[in-house]
């Protein structure tokens, strides 16, 4: 029984990253119709930024510094997102799918090397916050408190995004755009600005997810690749552009992964894809797709 | 030939087609008229298999096709055009028609000979374009055609499917008024030559009375009149619905 509590909590922990990453991807896809292949690189920027700050300044008060690092990562990735949108993504809205995908693919290659130029090719470790927080004892098992911390931050971020999307003017306009772009334009919504904003927001979420992962995994080149692929699966499962979809998709993938790792460690990833494929074949628009 | 019995179509709670019965005989040209929103295009969609009815029965040559796929209906000989032209825009005019012929002659799977080598089919495609008067435009792409020519091409494609029954949804909408009769002449003479049956949705009453053997008047999903054009036009309820004349 206690083991199962651990599996489920681990699943929630995986789901947290998936949710943050895929939420950003899903907002960008929903509002702009662009699949951002460089999303994983924004995740990586967040990871490097946070790991670097914790490593350089975190000797005295690691938790405080880590929180600062989280905000810094969020900010840097968000800024990078704004920069990307205004420079190369903006001319792509009217272009064909292949160009939209390729330009973000180009951005991915570019950013990967920018990270290498800025932080070098070495790994950055930032396990201090993880070590300091210690463990929670559940029966005979220990569960890291840091995992709960991640789950908590994710819930806060999720509520924040939900609040923005459903209670503020900006959020309502963003949803209007994602439902019907032309109609939104006709209603006088300033699509340009909102696109930039949405892209920045999505990027910031990816950066936050990246920052949250470094206390458990060193920041390495290519760290954003796997989260990107997982986020694709979540988005495909949950359906385009819905918060609920991202949440449920993340939970399914996270829990499957957590349980899969225990029972089928060799084929945990293919198993996940299999489930995704079964859902897609039976429900092509995803669970909550429009 | 075509036999529609007690056809009903609901969209959600709204009944678009309400227990409709009608027949179309071989080599008969029938017009379907009615005010906007009467359900004319829905009726065409039901017959062509684009959408499926809520209940009722559609028979074609005594075979039940109520729920048959569009693909099967095409193979049985029901073809249609589209109200908003629906062409293959990056294929030449010739290829637009030729692909229909390949499809109907079951040559469409063949991948090991260039299309031009199928000389008989290519010749037939050019002939069809010739019948419809656009053979000189065979190497152009649809976007460079006039609205009228696009409409004609759209109809020619339905015609090329060797159908026994053509559904034409407003074949002259979007065509300049002066050209309407020319377009209709072209289409009708091609249909007559092949002795096809045809159901036309049309708004222009002059066209209706000039070209059709019989008229069906559809109003709020029901057929309220069925008969020879000139007689139908004199009925009071038809006048009221079509021309807003109260007597």
């Amino acid at each position, binding site marked *: 029984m206690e083991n199962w509590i651990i599996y489920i909590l681990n699943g929630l922990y995986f789901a947290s990253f998936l949710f943050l990453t895929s939420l950003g991807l899903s907002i960008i896809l929903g509002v702009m119709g662009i*699949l951002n*292949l460089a999303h994983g690189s924004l995740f990586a920027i967040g990871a490097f930024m946070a790991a670097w700050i914790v490593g350089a300044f975190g000797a005295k008060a690691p938790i405080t510094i880590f929180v600062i690092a989280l905000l810094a990562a969020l900010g840097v990735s968000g800024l990078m997102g704004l920069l990307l949108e205004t420079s*190369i993504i903006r001319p*792509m809205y009217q272009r064909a*799918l*292949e160009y939209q*995908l*390729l*330009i973000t*693919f*180009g*951005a*991915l*290659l*570019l*950013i*990967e*090397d*920018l990270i290498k*130029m800025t932080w070098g090719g070495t790994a950055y470790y930032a396990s201090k916050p993880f070590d300091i927080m210690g463990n929670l004892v559940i029966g005979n098992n220990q569960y890291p408190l840091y995992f709960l911390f991640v789950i908590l931050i994710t819930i806060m971020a999720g509520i924040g995004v939900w609040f923005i999307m459903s209670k503020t003017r900006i959020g309502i306009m963003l949803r209007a755009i994602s439902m019907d772009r032309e109609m939104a334009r006709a209603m006088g919504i300033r699509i340009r600005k909102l696109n930039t904003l949405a892209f920045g927001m999505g990027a910031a979420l990816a950066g936050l997810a990246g920052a949250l992962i470094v206390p458990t995994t060193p920041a390495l080149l290519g760290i954003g690749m796997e989260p990107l*692929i997982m986020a*694709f*699966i979540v988005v*495909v499962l949950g359906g385009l552009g819905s918060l609920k979809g991202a949440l449920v998709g993340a939970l399914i993938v996270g829990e499957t992964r957590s349980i899969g790792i225990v029972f089928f460690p060799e*084929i945990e*990833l*293919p198993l996940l*894809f299999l489930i995704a*494929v079964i859902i*897609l*074949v039976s429900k*092509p628009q995803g669970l909550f797709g429009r | 030939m075509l036999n529609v019995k007690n056809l009903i179509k609901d969209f959600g709670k709204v009944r678009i087609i309400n227990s409709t019965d009608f027949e179309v005989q071989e080599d008969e040209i029938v017009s379907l008229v009615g005010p906007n929103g009467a359900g004319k295009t829905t009726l065409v969609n039901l017959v*062509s298999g*684009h959408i499926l009815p809520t209940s009722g029965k559609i028979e074609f040559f005594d075979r039940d096709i109520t729920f048959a796929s569009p693909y099967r209906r*095409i193979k049985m000989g029901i073809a249609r055009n*589209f109200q908003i032209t*629906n*062409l*293959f*825009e990056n*294929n*030449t005019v010739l*290829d637009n028609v030729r*692909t*229909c012929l*390949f*499809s109907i002659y079951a*040559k*469409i*799977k*063949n*991948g*090991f000979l*260039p*299309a*031009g080598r199928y000389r008989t089919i*290519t010749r037939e495609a050019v002939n069809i374009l010739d019948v419809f008067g656009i053979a000189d435009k*065979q190497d152009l*792409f649809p976007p460079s055609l006039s609205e009228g020519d696009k409409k004609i091409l759209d109809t020619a*494609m339905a015609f090329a499917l060797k159908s026994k029954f053509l559904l034409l949804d407003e074949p002259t909408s979007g065509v300049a008024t002066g050209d309407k009769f020319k377009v209709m002449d072209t289409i009708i003479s091609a249909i007559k030559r092949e002795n096809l049956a045809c159901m036309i949705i049309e708004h222009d009453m002059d066209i209706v009375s000039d070209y059709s053997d019989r008229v069906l008047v559809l109003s709020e999903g029901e057929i309220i009149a069925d008969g020879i054009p000139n007689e139908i036009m004199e009925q009071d309820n038809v006048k009221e619905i079509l021309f807003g004349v109260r007597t």
Partner: protein
Amino acid sequence: MGLKDTFLIPRFLIYVGIFIFLLFMPKLLPTYQLMLMESGITFAIMGLGFNLLLRYTGLLSFGHGALFATGAYAVGMMGEYFPDLYRIEIVIPISLAASLIVSAIFGFICVRHTRIFFSILALALSMVLFALLVKLYNITGGSDGIHIDLPMMFGKSFEGMKRFEFLSGAYYYFLIGIFAACTIIMLVIVSSPFGKALQSIRDNEERAEMIGIRVRRYRWYAFVLSGLYTGLGGALWSFVNGHVSPEIAEWVFSGEIVYMTLLGGFMVFEGPIIGAILFTYLKLYAVSITQYWMFIIGATLIVLVLLLPEGITGGFVKLFAKLKRGEATGAV
């Protein structure tokens, strides 16, 4: 005879010219350059298949790396587990069979969707294969991959021969023979009734259905054909490279396939061929001058998309049309 058919004749003459030129290539290029060229030609075969989907069917696959890997790994595993059958005339058909099976499965799932969902799904499926190649290391050699030995070719053994000698000898002529056959077959396919059906599906799915084309099934056929070309490219590439590893199944390589095709220009039949060969040289050049080669490739890609979206051949067609002031409809 339509406009497009008349185009076939001068095009055919140019092909013959290029083929004769290719025959003399081993005399003209240093061995190393020749090997690059061969690598480019295998990518070109793949590019032809990829473009059948993109240009002629309107489906953008971001997972073709997996199909390429299928062909390449089939070769590797034949060498590893069936050394007696390791003859090129057996290995290549086996590779094709493997590609047929994998692309039939992938295609069956992917063609239920179009546009961006198709791309994501192809990408996700390719990552399944990637994960399997890495995880099932007992069979696949894991992330180290498999070494590719020189095969027997039509009864002739090349044991003890250096790879470059093999590649600049018999194998080169074998490769360009297959390449020529692939190009001509694909040219026929895209102008055949089947090719026309694909193009009508691309243009207007709804109408294609209404003239009696089974849209989903034809997309599937196109996917499988494309997979066969891609797998064949992978198989032929494995001999040139001498080694297969899971990177070719990863989606980044799939992205490079898209890149090659757009570099050459996907609106022109020959575009992907030119793109594949150019990309091979471009990448090698970037890698040789800096450790930040991804930066160069990425920047080139962005500039290309922004300034020359029709690719190199598309740019030429446009320029040519401008000079001639004729219609810009020359592309098949």
